[in-house]
């Protein structure tokens, strides 16, 4: 299928694929097995300018948007979804800054993210606030010389490895979600520590940690936008980042489809390759349909985000839900086609199946996102009735 990408978009996709195949593929099994953070790969991505893709040109970036980010994430995820999320989380960590930051804040933090010298991370989730994201307890009390942070963030991607964190905390705890604000916290700020690296089912190379704030004082100049808008900023951020999770799903499913097709071509049973059997052919065809439909929806949503459309909640939620459900199904079927071999860790599809599950969970569970889509349906119905 031709998605009419520009020359620059094709260049970004082509180089991402090369990095994935030449540098990530040889180490992906080891990264997964050892649950080791991929610093070597991060350096490769940095020297190839990949972290510049999503940063405006004024801050040493290449000025790409959601679609460009999706193209990189898809290609990385085709080989290793754990590396892909590590990369994407750095973008997530600075998108609020890009949208609401002052000129001075952007100058201070964005060039280091663009060059890949520093990674970003975004922190909203807490032990009491998962799907119920507004139920956060971390406070950022206004004191002499800045904000004093106290509380714990949970399951934070790039936690402990990133240098720049966008943290959602209550600057006014009497107002609940309306008292939340987005604040930049740099690693090594006194009072800011990390929990142990979580042991996960999949995307094991990526780092997931608790962030612990104990009387952590950050300068007032680290507040992004106006106080009290943090929750809205976070929801707006996810509206724009969700196509990226969709792209992660597309890449992962594409990788699984290719692995299953290769296996079906080579594996002989009953004196014939599996791929000549209608039952296997139909499974592969259904997988291919799911992958391509996901890709079309993800690219369309990404382009919609890049168009500057005001309300992208529905489009980006649809792309994320559809593509992640497809990735789960496609990776399960890929293991099925590869049979006993597919269940073994020497083959890549079992890792892909483990990696897929998180896509239905993070950045809004698919159930929460279906709620959001339904809310929009009802609103539209009410307007036209």
């Amino acid at each position, binding site marked *: 299928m031709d998605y009419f990408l520009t020359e620059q978009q094709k*260049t970004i996709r082509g180089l991402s694929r*090369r990095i994935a195949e030449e540098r990530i593929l040889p180490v992906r099994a080891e990264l997964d097995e050892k649950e080791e953070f991929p610093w070597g790969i991060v350096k*490769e991505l940095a020297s190839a300018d990949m972290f510049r893709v999503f940063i405006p040109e004024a801050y040493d970036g290449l000025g790409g948007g959601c679609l460009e980010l999706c193209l990189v994430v898809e290609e990385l995820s085709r080989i290793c979804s754990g590396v892909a999320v590590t990369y994407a989380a750095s973008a997530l960590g600075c998108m609020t800054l890009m949208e609401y930051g002052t000129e001075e804040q952007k100058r201070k933090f964005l060039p280091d993210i663009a060059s890949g010298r520093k990674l970003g991370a975004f922190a909203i989730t807490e032990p009491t606030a998962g799907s119920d994201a507004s139920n956060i307890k971390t406070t950022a009390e206004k004191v002499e010389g800045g904000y004093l942070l106290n509380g714990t963030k949970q399951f934070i991607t790039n936690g402990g490895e990133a240098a720049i964190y966008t943290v959602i905390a209550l600057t006014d705890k009497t107002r609940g979600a309306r008292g939340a604000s987005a604040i930049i916290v740099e690693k090594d700020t006194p009072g800011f520590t990390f929990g142990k690296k979580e042991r996960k089912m999949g995307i094991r190379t990526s780092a997931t940690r608790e962030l612990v704030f104990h009387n952590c004082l950050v300068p007032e100049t680290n507040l992004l936008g106006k106080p009290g808008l943090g929750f809205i900023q976070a929801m707006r951020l996810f509206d724009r980042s969700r196509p990226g999770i969709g792209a992660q799903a597309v890449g992962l499913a594409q990788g699984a489809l290719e692995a299953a097709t290769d296996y079906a071509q080579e594996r002989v049973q009953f004196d014939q390759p599996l791929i000549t059997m209608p039952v296997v052919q139909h499974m592969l065809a259904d997988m291919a349909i799911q992958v391509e439909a996901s890709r079309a929806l993800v690219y369309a949503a990404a382009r919609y985000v890049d168009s500057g459309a005001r309300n992208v909640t529905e489009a980006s939620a649809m792309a994320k839900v559809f593509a992640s459900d497809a990735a789960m199904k496609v990776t399960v079927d890929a293991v099925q086609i590869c049979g006993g071999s597919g269940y073994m860790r020497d083959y890549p599809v079992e890792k892909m199946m483990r990696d897929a599950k998180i896509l239905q969970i993070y950045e809004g569970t698919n159930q929460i996102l279906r709620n959001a889509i339904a809310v929009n349906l009802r609103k539209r119905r009410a307007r036209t009735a």
Partner: protein
Amino acid sequence: MNIVVCLKQVPGSTSVKIDPRTNTLIRQGIENIINPFDTYALEEGVRLKEKHGGKVTVITMGPPQADVALREAISLGADEAVLLSDRAFAGADTWATAYTLSRAVARLGKYDILICGRQTIDGDTGQVGPELAEMLGVPFVAYVSRIEEIKENYLRVRRMVEEGHEVIEATLPAVITVAKEINVPRLPSLRGIMKSKSAAITTWGIKELGVDQNMVGLAGSSTQVIKVFFPQRVCQAEILTGDLAAQVDKLIDKLKGARLI
């Protein structure tokens, strides 16, 4: 530091066919790549520039389409690129190639080090590097696996020999050919690729180089490939008989007879 890297565009496939009439490679329909050995030369040149400053100039001789290889070199860190392209250059052997390259290097002006890959994967001769040094009248070191030190007028390198290494010092300017052990070539960067797409490529022909057309290309080549063929494989088999000791004796006699032991 002025660094010059010579590279060649070669067929990217190992399944190239040979035209039985001309005994040359059939290049149609085959994707071309930078000769893999030359990518190590380029990487080493770019690393020298990053460490000591200066610029990297890449030169290639080939058809107009060889600018693709030069643009790729720019995406990998080269600053300037010169394409030597002229109908008169066609059909050159290593001598005529080295002569043409040497005239281009002379035209570039002052240089400190010239780096080539140890050989190409299509011609496989490994001759152009040493010939270039000879024609330029500068020191030459082959199979360099590490540049240990480089200063204004002096170079110390480690080179690979059959059973170990040699450490060699030479004055600059010098020509070296590098082995693949010297580095791991980087991948291009996005900014490098974007820069390379619009980069200006200088093209020089016989006029710009001021060379006699009888000194270049087929006319300037003192060797010519007259036949390319697969060697006939001859194998003889003999089964030794008798008890084990007798078989061993016979085998030893045979091996001695063949001067293998």
